[in-house]
């Protein structure tokens, strides 16, 4: 059986091709919407491309993509371990708020101390938020999806509450926290930004995201812990039989995933955010993380690329207004992409369907032959 691979074989087996096809289809559907609305497809997509390909535009894309990458890594990690971390949203929010509070209360710590400290408390807060859900599941059997939805909202109102405390709240009229201490900011120096023509919020976050990606990859692929967690994700009964504690695995997986989401929150704050506003509705970084994890096939390297792609869409999309196209076009495109990724299993089934058709044809031919005799 040393047959050369057919075109169909290649398409049906290569996940990367599925994703590229899905993205193309997403833009195609987006173009249809633009046509129906009577807008120029070339102009809109041209704007999308031109706004992210300049040096300044691309630096904006990188800045935007940092929280998406890290939130995506958080969700991807949970997918690998068989848990669906729909609670990344809340973990992101508590992480950002924890880092914000520390940087406002301890503004005079030197930079090399304050920045790691902020990361640490953000990761701890996110891990705590994830662990509570795991604890509720293990101790009382509370469905984790339900409690994550609840804890997303509890985190949301908790953040708004903390932003309103006098010691934290902005001295000005803004409905937000004070600005974080300059010692907690990860922005590049003003001169560097000016000299290179970068976005004013250009910062070191992307390097941190890169490190986090490598750490996640290492945990999943190279450690016993990662092996155990994956085993539970694939088949928890088999894993239990093999001597792995499923309960402890769920706890560990959600704690690590939560820590990542919390870190994503602190990166957003210490990069482009600079303070946290009182919000009327959830910001959706955690939900974006789900999309990024899906587009990146839950593979750390894939998630990194998908996060930058998502950042480009969001930043480029915000410029669509300039050519009269609605920003919401991006949601339609991304939604379509995710939809096609979801149904890309049909590519895998194509081969089986063809085989079945051939078998059916052969069977009916045989039947005809038998009848004619």
């Amino acid at each position, binding site marked *: 059986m040393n047959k050369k691979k057919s075109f169909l074989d290649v398409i049906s087996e290569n996940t990367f091709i599925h994703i590229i096809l899905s993205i193309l289809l997403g833009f195609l559907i987006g173009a249809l919407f633009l046509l129906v609305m009577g807008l120029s497809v070339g102009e809109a997509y041209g704007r999308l491309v031109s706004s992210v390909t300049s040096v300044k535009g691309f630096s904006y894309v990188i800045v935007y993509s940092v929280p998406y990458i890290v939130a995506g890594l958080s969700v991807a990690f949970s997918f690998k371990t068989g848990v669906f971390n729909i609670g990344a949203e809340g973990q992101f929010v508590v992480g950002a708020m924890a880092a914000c509070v520390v940087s406002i209360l301890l503004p005079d710590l030197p930079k090399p101390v304050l920045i790691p400290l902020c990361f640490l408390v953000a990761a701890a807060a996110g891990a705590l938020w994830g662990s509570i859900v795991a604890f509720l599941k293990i101790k009382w059997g509370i469905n984790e*999806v*339900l409690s994550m939805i609840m804890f997303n909202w509890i985190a949301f109102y908790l953040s708004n509450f903390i932003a309103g405390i006098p010691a934290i709240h902005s001295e000005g009229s803004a409905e937000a926290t004070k600005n974080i201490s300059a010692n907690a900011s990860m922005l590049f120096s003003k001169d560097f930004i000016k000299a290179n023509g970068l976005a004013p919020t250009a910062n070191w976050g992307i390097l941190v995201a890169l490190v986090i990606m490598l750490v996640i990859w290492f945990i999943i692929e190279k450690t016993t812990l990662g092996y155990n967690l994956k085993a539970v994700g694939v088949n928890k009964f088999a894993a239990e039989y093999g001597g792995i504690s499923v309960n402890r695995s769920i706890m560990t997986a959600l704690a690590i995933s939560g820590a990542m989401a919390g870190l994503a929150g602190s990166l957003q704050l210490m990069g482009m955010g600079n303070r946290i506003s009182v919000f009327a509705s959830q910001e959706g970084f955690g939900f974006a993380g789900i999309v990024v994890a*899906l587009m990146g096939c839950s593979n750390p390297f894939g998630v990194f690329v998908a996060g930058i792609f998502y950042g480009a869409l969001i930043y480029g999309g915000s410029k669509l207004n300039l050519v009269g196209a609605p920003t919401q076009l991006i949601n339609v495109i991304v939604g379509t992409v995710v939809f096609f990724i979801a149904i890309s299993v049909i590519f895998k089934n194509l081969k089986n369907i063809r085989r079945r058709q051939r078998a059916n044809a052969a069977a009916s031919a045989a039947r005809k032959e038998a009848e004619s005799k």
Partner: protein
Amino acid sequence: MTDFVNSLGIILYATLAYMTPLLFAALGSCFSEVSGVVNIGIEGMMTAGAFTGTVVAYFTGSPWIGFLCGGLAGALFGMLHATATVRLGADQTIAGTAINMLGPGIVIMIARVLFNSTDTIPLNATQKLPKLFAGVFDTNTVFGRFMDNVFANYVSTYLVFAAAIIVWFVFYKTKFGLRLRACGEHPQACETLGINVLRMRFTCVTLSGFLAGLGGACVTMTISTQFRPISIVGQGFIAIAAVIFGKFRPQGALIGCLLFGFCSGLKVVLGGSGGVDMQLLSMIPYVVTVIVLIIFVGKSHVPSANGKPFIKAR
């Protein structure tokens, strides 16, 4: 005493008002989840219904046509989800996430075309859903005002209770209901008995979209009279939570939605009296849900085949 009765009336009023859209969506979620298809796209389907309901009511002048069209818009997205998950065997969570992006994305784009804004034009009094028993009670007496608060609610509140009873009846007293529950527990066994599992699930997911669409339309056609991008923020997820809370039973979902609505009502009254921070009060419904789960409800039995695509053997 008078104050207490008034407050109680307002709490009950708010309970019913908050509960109505949630329960419609939760009943929809029951159909989908019990037949074995995870539907986290409820949120997107509600958004579609919320937008379509008020737009159709605005252009036709009839709240009833609008309300129905809201349901149909939800059903359309339900069919999209069903096509992906039931017919094509897609991952149900991923497809649902896609619906949650497509729903708001598409309707807000249409809003931009129709109204040159992301908001629709507010409905007038004849275009929104009517109130039942308005003006029946004498609001000058304490008792009359209490009755007015509780019973002079929008007609959607009465409809949702009727819908809950119908769904309960369908689930537990009809052949269709027995089959739909069986599809979520053991689809292979159903198939051997000649039940078309795929058609059953397709129908149920479409129905779930229809009910979620009606729920969305309740949001924008009663107290609020226009669609805005923030009209549906999380109600779909709360509805799903209510279904899990209610152990995947319509009567359980009703209790979950009532509890949630009651806590929200409590928040309105306590917030009005001042003293306690509004943000902390807003947490009450979510915290209470978790606590009630711990103390009274505990483990929820998820339908055995929930989330698993059914692939027909040939």
